[in-house]
């Protein structure tokens, strides 16, 4: 009898909902029933309200069951789930689930599908095609392809990757580096983690292509310490790639060397800022550097360095594999390609939704997310992490696009969306934004270091005061935010005013201020 393949995710989100126990119970129950099963620990499909999502390979394709608890395992076997039998938790063919079927998965094509640490799986599902094509091109042609694709930095800044790469390519140096920023610190974001845990070879391949394009021989992944599972998976993936000749002295018999190492951070949010990250990699405090010089010219250890976020680099294999022109057919305006959107907070169906740019917040929150988990009305949505704007429910028709969000006083950031119901107090959220900035400021510039603490105090005074005094304090907060925006050295101090001011502008009642719709943008 041939073995039935069962998939139970190893993704840490699934594990946090009990996937380890479920995997063990399935093996034990199969043994008890005399069934032969092959257990694959895949990444997560990103449908987190269904985790642990168990899949069974059947003649109809992979069939999903979820969320599976320990107590469900015996009844699944009784319902003959090894043949895709019906059960209370049966969801049908995985690929046909509307949440998944309507997505445009380019970067996440393999996540949840393959065994993350099977290089054969990776190659069978299109992996290393990008590298194969890259090896037929000159460095300049590779950079050109990335430029044509329109790929912009997915970490938050949205800077065109091709331009950054060209600068590194054109800068002469004896040593160049590729640095992957895997310090995914924004609350509400987890796409980097999903890639690193669910398809690590994509990141390895993307960094390898980047290195070949510009002539770098050493790469570093700067990984946040909060991701121990990603560290384990990446470490194993790098060792496998080395043993199979995809990393090391002679990458894929190209005669070119590329070595890759992981460095774990120290729990400092500011190290997601690229120059602070470089300081940390060099063994110092994560203090932001002045620019210029650009890191592309004088970056890690003073050498020209490509610095890109995980998703940016993980998108490189599909771009090189299928061509920049293919990738840029997705998206709108100057936001080309796809965006892995992370939907979290108070939402019924949280998860990972990779779509072409241009999908609206409303579609994401209601059609994918199904509204709030609490069943109460949506009141506020924070887009783009702790430095992103709070939008009211009336403003959800804005498309997810770098320029469209900027025009509404917000930012796209790393593509995280956090939904709040009507129990949220936006004055407290604004206070938290200042608190977070005070906690995480590197201290180099005054507006950020001092301004954030003064910001907490001023918000407390607005809340505690009345009438004209309250309005005066609100003006003081606006003034302080102006100073932070204009005077801070990096995005932490410079963008903390975005959540604060958007809360004040869109939700004045929470601060005890009169609701003046004329002040509101977009409504």
């Amino acid at each position, binding site marked *: 009898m041939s073995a039935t393949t069962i998939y139970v995710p190893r993704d*840490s*989100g699934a*594990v946090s*909902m009990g996937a380890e126990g479920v995997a063990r119970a399935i093996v034990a129950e199969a043994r008890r029933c005399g069934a032969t099963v092959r257990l694959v620990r895949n990444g997560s499909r990103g449908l987190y309200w269904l*985790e642990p999502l168990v899949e069974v390979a059947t003649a109809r394709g992979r069939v999903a069951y979820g969320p599976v608890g320990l107590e469900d395992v015996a009844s699944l076997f009784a319902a003959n789930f090894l043949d895709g039998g019906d059960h209370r938790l049966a969801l049908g063919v995985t690929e046909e689930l509307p949440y998944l079927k309507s997505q445009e998965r380019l970067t996440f094509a393999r996540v949840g599908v393959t065994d993350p640490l099977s290089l054969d799986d990776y190659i069978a599902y299109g992996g290393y095609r990008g590298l194969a094509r890259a090896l037929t091109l000159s460095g300049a042609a590779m950079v050109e392809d990335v430029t044509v694709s329109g790929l912009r930095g997915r970490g938050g800044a949205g800077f065109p990757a091709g331009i950054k790469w060209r600068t590194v390519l054109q800068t002469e140096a004896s040593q160049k580096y590729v640095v992957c920023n895997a310090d995914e610190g924004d609350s509400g*974001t*987890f796409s980097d983690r999903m890639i690193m845990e669910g398809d690590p070879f994509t990141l390895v391949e993307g960094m390898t292509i980047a290195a070949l394009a510009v002539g770098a021989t050493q790469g570093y992944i700067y990984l946040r310490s909060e991701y121990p599972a990603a560290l384990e998976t990446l470490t194993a993936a790098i060792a496998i790639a080395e043993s199979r000749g995809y990393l090391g002295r002679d990458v894929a018999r190209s005669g070119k060397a590329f070595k890759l190492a992981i*460095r774990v951070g120290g729990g400092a949010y500011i190290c997601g800022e690229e120059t602070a990250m470089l300081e940390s990699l060099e063994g110092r405090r994560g203090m932001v550097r002045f620019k210029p010089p650009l890191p592309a010219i004088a970056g890690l250890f003073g050498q020209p360095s490509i610095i890109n976020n995980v998703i940016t680099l993980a998108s490189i294999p599909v771009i090189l594999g299928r061509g920049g022109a293919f990738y840029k057919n997705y998206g709108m305006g100057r936001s080309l390609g796809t965006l892995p959107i992370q939907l979290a907070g108070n939402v019924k169906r949280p998860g*990972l939704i990779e779509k072409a740019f241009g999908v609206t917040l409303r579609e994401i929150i209601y059609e994918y997310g199904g509204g709030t988990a609490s069943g109460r009305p949506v009141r506020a949505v924070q887009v783009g992490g702790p430095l992103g704007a709070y939008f009211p429910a009336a403003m959800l028709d804005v498309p997810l696009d770098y320029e469209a969000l900027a025009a509404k006083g917000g930012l796209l950031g790393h593509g995280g969306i956090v939904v709040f119901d009507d129990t949220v107090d936006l004055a407290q959220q604004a206070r938290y934004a200042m608190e*977070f900035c005070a906690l995480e400021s590197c201290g180099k510039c005054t507006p950020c270091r001092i301004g954030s603490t003064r910001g907490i105090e001023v918000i407390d005074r607005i809340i505690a005061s009345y009438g004209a005094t309250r309005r005066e304090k609100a003006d003081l907060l606006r003034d302080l935010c102006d100073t932070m925006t204009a005077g801070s050295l990096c995005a932490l101090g410079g963008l903390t005013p975005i959540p604060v001011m958007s809360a004040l502008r869109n939700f004045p009642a929470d601060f005890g201020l009169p609701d003046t719709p004329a002040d509101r943008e977009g409504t």
Partner: protein
Amino acid sequence: MNREHEWDKAAVAAIARELKNEPGALMPILRRIQDRLGWVPRDAVPLIANILNLSRAEVHGVVSFYHDFRHAPPGRNVVRVCRAESCQAMGGVALAEHIKRRLGIDFGETSKDGEFTLEAVYCLGNCACSPAAMVGADLLGRVTPSRFDDAIAHRGGTNR
């Protein structure tokens, strides 16, 4: 607590010597010390400085900059609770209050019996299963007060 905590000087020196030639060696050294010991002893600073040929101030500056590096040994079980926005939206503030009461300690404190240390963390990347917390090496999702109590039930008084 004023009493001096014991730590393995030879092990710390061995880590520093082993990694000293890595580019940007100080962070990997501190990480490994913290992973091995659970904290970075103050008295390890001159030792590391000497091996790396750095000033004590430089090493101290790095140790004190990063939230991860503890200045005292943690309890047997480190509980890390996410306090960031996605978890706030799902009742994370009330959960944190419950955990503080349950453990009898505030953030940054270790219980008198040395059983638990409570730490704040700003995002565990488990936002789609908010609110999130970690007990030891175990990540927990959609944590409720009772799920948390279950997660620590077998830990109190043990050596885990």
